[in-house]
C-alpha cells in the first residue's frame, strides 16, 4: 500500500487491494472463506459484503484510537473491535437474510479470526488516518469479494451449469459435482493461483 509511482495515497489505498495486493490471489491471506463458501455465487457475495462491512468498521475504529493504543494491548483491542462488528453483522444477516445466514452458518462468526481483517488493522489502520484506513478497507474488501465471486462463479458454473442460479450451460452439459465439494474449492483456487502466477511472472526472473 505505498504511494509510489506518483499515485496519491488515497488512490493507492483504494486500488491496491483490487489486484496488486489482492488478499486472496496475491497475498494468500484469509483463505478460509474462499475455500468454504464459494460453492455458489450468492453466499460468496453475502460473505464478501459482510467482510467489507466488518473491515470498514474495524479500520474506522482502530484508526480513530490509534494514538491511544498500548503496544502490548493492541491485538486484544483489534480482536474485541472485530468481534463486535462481526456479531452485529451476524445479527443483521439473521434478521434480514435468514436463509443466507443459515447457508453461511458458522463461517460468519469465523470472520472474527479472518487474518485479513486483523492484518489491515495492524498494517494500515493503526498507522494511518481515517480516510486512508476507510479507503484501504473498501479496496481490500472489494478485492476479497471479487476473488470470492470469481471462485464461486467457476465452481457454480461447472458444478451445476448455472451462475447466480441462472442456467448458463446447455442441457447436454454434465455437471462436475466434485467442484461443489471441498476438493473443488482447493482445485479451483490452486489452478487460479497457478494461472495468475504464470501470467504475472516477470520474464527472466
Amino acid at each position: 500500500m505505498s504511494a509510489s509511482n506518483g499515485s496519491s495515497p488515497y488512490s493507492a489505498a483504494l486500488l491496491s487491494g483490487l489486484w496488486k495486493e489482492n488478499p486472496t490471489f496475491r497475498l494468500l491471506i484469509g483463505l478460509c472463506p474462499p475455500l468454504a463458501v464459494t460453492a455458489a455465487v450468492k453466499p460468496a457475495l453475502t460473505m464478501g459484503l459482510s467482510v467489507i462491512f466488518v473491515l470498514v468498521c474495524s479500520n474506522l475504529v482502530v484508526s480513530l484510537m490509534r494514538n491511544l493504543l498500548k503496544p502490548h494491548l493492541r491485538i486484544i483491542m483489534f480482536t474485541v473491535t472485530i468481534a463486535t462488528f462481526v456479531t452485529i453483522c451476524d445479527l443483521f444477516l439473521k434478521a434480514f437474510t435468514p436463509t443466507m445466514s443459515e447457508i453461511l452458518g458458522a463461517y460468519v462468526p469465523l470472520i472474527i479470526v479472518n487474518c485479513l481483517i486483523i492484518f489491515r488493522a495492524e498494517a494500515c489502520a493503526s498507522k494511518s488516518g481515517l480516510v486512508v484506513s476507510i479507503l484501504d478497507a473498501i479496496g481490500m474488501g472489494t478485492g476479497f469479494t471479487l476473488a470470492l465471486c470469481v471462485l464461486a462463479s467457476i465452481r457454480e458454473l461447472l458444478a451445476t451449469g448455472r451462475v447466480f442460479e441462472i442456467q448458463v450451460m446447455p442441457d447436454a452439459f454434465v455437471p462436475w459435482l466434485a467442484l461443489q465439494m471441498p476438493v473443488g474449492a482447493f482445485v479451483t483456487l490452486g489452478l487460479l493461483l497457478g494461472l495468475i502466477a504464470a501470467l504475472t511472472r516477470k520474464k527472466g526472473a
Partner: protein
Amino acid sequence: MSKLKLFAQESWLLLVSSFVFGLLIAVTNAALSGRIELNKSAKLNELTRTLLPDAETFKPVEAQIEVTLPGGTKETAQVFEALSADKQRVGWSFRAYGSGFADTIELVVAVDGGFQKMMGYSVLASSETPGFGDQIKNDYFRSQFVNAPAGPLTLAKTGDPAAIDSQIVAISGATVTSTAVVGIFNAFLVQIKDQMTEKGLIGHVSQ
C-alpha cells in the same frame, strides 16, 4: 495504590471499549431480536409442515409444560397442536434444544396425534462442524427417527440405520453431535409426553 493507578493507565481503553462495544451489541440485539424470532417462527412452521404434510395450522398448547434440562434448569416447552384444514388433529410439534459440539442445537420435533410414534425432526439452528456434525441435517441420520416409538432413545456406534426402533446409529466422526441429538430427544420428548398425558391433552380431540 500505585498498582491500581498503573492498572487503570494500562487498561482504561480496553475497559471503556468493552463497555461501549457491549452496549452496541445489546442495542442491535434489542432492535433485531423481534425480527429474528419472527423468522425463526416462520421457519418452525415451514419445517413442521414438511414433517406433518397434512397440517394447515399450528395451535400453541396453552397448558404450561415444563422441561427440566440436563443442567437442572427448568424451561417452558413450546408445544403446538398441528391441525388439518378441517381442524382435525394430525400431530404435535415442539421445539427442543441442547448443547452440541460447537453451539446450541435447536430442533423441531413432530410426533403423531396419539404421541405414540415420531414423525421426524428438522434442524432449526446448528453450528456443528461442516461435513461431520452437520450431517444431522441429512436424511441418512434423520430417517432413523421417522416412525420410531415416541419414548426414550439409545445411541449405538454400529447397527442398522434402516431399522425402525428406539436405537439410533451415530454419525461416524460426529459422536458428540449424535449424542447431543439423542440427548435432546430424551430430555424433551419423554417429559413433554408425560406431562401432556397428566394434563389429559393426549387423546383429546380439538374442536
